[in-house]
């Protein structure tokens, strides 16, 4: 096969500032084996020229690890929310459409502001409350099964796919969303982390846990296969117990 003239066609939804109008630009670059969407963005940044030959600016985007472990490069590619670094060009229909996530405030081009996800980790006290870092010996013994379960929740890279796909979540509304719920469950399951269980559950209740409509989109798009459905149902169960307890405590 003659690969000399083979090209890749793609388009990017651009937006230069948060309050300016978005617009689409199309590009065409030479094909090579094993390209991913990041390499397309690099090509666009190197020679910022649209496919009708007009000069443009390099499209801004976030990326760091380039191996799907940092969560930076999340965007919508051919209509699906995912990481650009593992989106292989040869597996995508062309022209490949690349756009920013829609649920987070736009910064510029493909960059969005996901600070809200880190904030919600504060609301649920997403940490193990150790006394301090003095050397006081090892942690609690943990079985291999418990470890595997914790590892699954702990591989969440705060990428935002679950929130983007959730019909109930938006960055300015009440629902805290599956990402933070799963982290609350992670720490509620830890032998030391448990001590904050009721505070975490209360935070989930205050932040719209019951708004989840069980659409299950989140689990379908999670690149790390975090058990979000399991986490939500566990959270609901913990909330039921918590409400019952505080009801009994009050009367």
């Amino acid at each position, binding site marked *: 096969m003659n690969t000399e003239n083979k090209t890749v066609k793609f388009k990017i939804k651009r937006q*230069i500032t948060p309050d300016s109008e978005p617009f689409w630009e199309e590009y065409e670059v030479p094909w*090579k084996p*094993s*390209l*991913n969407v*990041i390499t397309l963005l*690099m090509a666009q*940044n*190197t020679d*910022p020229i649209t496919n009708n030959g007009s*000069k443009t*600016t*390099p499209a*801004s985007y*976030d*990326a*760091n*690890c*380039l*191996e*799907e*472990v*940092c*969560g*930076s490069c999340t965007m919508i590619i051919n209509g699906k929310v995912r990481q650009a*670094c*593992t989106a*292989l060009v040869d597996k995508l229909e062309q022209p490949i459409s690349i756009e920013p996530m829609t649920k987070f405030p736009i*910064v*510029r*081009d493909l960059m969005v502001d996901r600070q809200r996800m*880190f904030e919600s*980790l*504060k609301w649920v006290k*997403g*940490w*193990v*409350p*150790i006394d*301090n*870092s003095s*050397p*006081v*010996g*090892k*942690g609690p*013994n*943990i*079985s*291999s099964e418990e*470890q*595997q379960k914790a*590892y699954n929740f*702990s*591989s969440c*890279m*705060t990428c935002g796919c679950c929130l983007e796909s959730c019909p109930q979540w938006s960055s300015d509304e009440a629902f805290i969303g599956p990402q933070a719920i799963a982290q609350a469950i992670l*720490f509620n399951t830890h032998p*030391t*982390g448990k001590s904050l269980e009721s505070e975490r559950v209360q935070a989930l209740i205050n932040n719209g846990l019951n708004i989840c409509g069980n659409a299950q989109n989140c689990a379908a798009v999670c690149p790390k296969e975090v058990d979000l459905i399991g986490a939500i149902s566990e959270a609901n169960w913990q909330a039921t117990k918590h409400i019952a307890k505080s009801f009994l405590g009050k009367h």
Partner: protein
Amino acid sequence: MNKKTKIAIIGGGLAGLGAAMRIAEMSAEKKDIIVQLFSIVPVKRSHSVCAQGGINAANKYTGDSTYQHFDDTVYGGDFLANQKPVQKMCDSAPDIIDLFDRMGVPFNRTSEGNIDRRRFGGTLHPRTAYSGATTGQQLLYALDEQVRRYEAEGLVEKYEGWEYLSTILDENGICCGIVAQDLISMEVKAFPCDAVILATGGPGQVYGRSTNSVSNNGLAVISLYHQGAKYANGEFIQVHPTAIGGDDKLRLMSESARGEGGRVWVPGDASKTWIDQEGKERPCGETGKPWYFLEEKYPAYGNLVPRDIATREIFQVVYELKMGVDGRPFVYLDVSHIAKEKGIEYIDRKLKGILEIYEKFKGVDPRQVPMEIFPAVHYSMGGLWVDDETHMTNIEGVFAAGECDYQYHGANRLGANSLLSCVYTGLEVAGPEAVKFAKNRLKPASETALEVLEKEVNKQKDFLDKLLNLSGPENPRKLHLELGNLMTENVTIVRENKSLQETYNKICELEKRFWNITIPDKGNWANQSVRYAHQLYYLFSLAKIITLGALQRNESRGAHYKPQFPERDDDNFLKTTIAIYNEASNAPILSYQAVDTSLIEPRKRDYSKKSAAATKVKN
């Protein structure tokens, strides 16, 4: 004193977060210190998340000892590391693992529920604690969580999406603040502070493509070098034996694959030969059968020889023996037998993270077929010179921790020792020492005259404006590609003086061309183009330090290998290389400093024999 002490930490990888956690903890009672944490990326997305294999600490159960860990580290580093700090680090390692265990890191477990260990390169002991094949991510998250807790209490202020540009020095040359830029609004601002810790990670971008992340650009460190900081052992760059290619990045296949029993091989060819330690000529395996060349050449350590050795062997098999798979520059890294013998569930529990990377990028399942791998630039043993005890650079008030400092790993780092050195230096050394310095300084940074702050801010602004206005014919990204290729071809596995000299001259030419680039975006909002050029500007200086260091070191030691000088030369080069920036010539000036070998007598490295690990202790 009514003003609070301020400490700026630049970088939120393991080293930066470790320092932030410890300092916040030290201030928890009196609330007298504020940590200002700066990072290009949200700290939870720092490069440390890439670390796969694990973290080293001696443990009692396998006959290991902290002394053995110390000896393996010094020996693996070919005796170039100052020994006292290495010993302290190895002694602290077990407590560091305990701490992470308490913070909830899901380390893999034994059947009793203890932390499991695997073997890594350069040791005969299973010493490496791990969390699947994403250990760095899990360790980083644990620190990120603790730091968030302190952030919620008001002890830590985060500046994510800010880039450190330079340090502000007072009239006595003492640090009194930093200048940083908001990468979205592009605002450049001074932050007065009583001490600074640089924890900005490795400099992989100088090679264009490496296993490093995009943010590993070296800007902070080289900017400090331009302000007078010493840079040490720059020529010691680790090339990891096992990675896969890519146009954007070279992706690591962790040493843990070999730690779990993975084997490196190429199809054998009995018509070719190699010379063993005793000078005997031996065939390169049996034709038609796999030749496990590392196992045959290094019976004691096998596939787990240190990285410098594995890398050179692979290079030799591919380029000198011309035995790469199907004549291409690859060898096999094979874990398929583990999947067959112990099952998919078993191998996934241990290595899923990396197996998925291979599968996602190569479209082949490594549980079924051997992986095709080749060496890639991975880690910098060199970095900012720091004092053995305090981790302060030669600029008063500026400390360095993590991959950006030069300590611990000598001429070659052992696998799983970096996560340890990063956490150790942030948490146990630079963090507390920065507090000590900040509390005892004569004049608090808050009293710095406004002119002093503004002067440095204006200097940085002017420089950025100058860059923004560049409109020549050169393309900054293409220039970076040229620099990366030049460095990768000439200053990695095999180094020749003639080509090093040519490389140095070419770096200077590229640097001249830099001033003819165009910045394709003249805007003032999230302008990544000007930022890219700014980083590139500093890479030339870094490339010069590395290349000149390599040129002048006429010996072979650890990762630095010169066929012209194949032996280690302790008489002349058991020395730390120190580079200082000379502004007039825009070039590094090198000098050499004695290495502390007070605890273990330097001996020849020989990984073909087990006795390698037996040591004679001084005194």
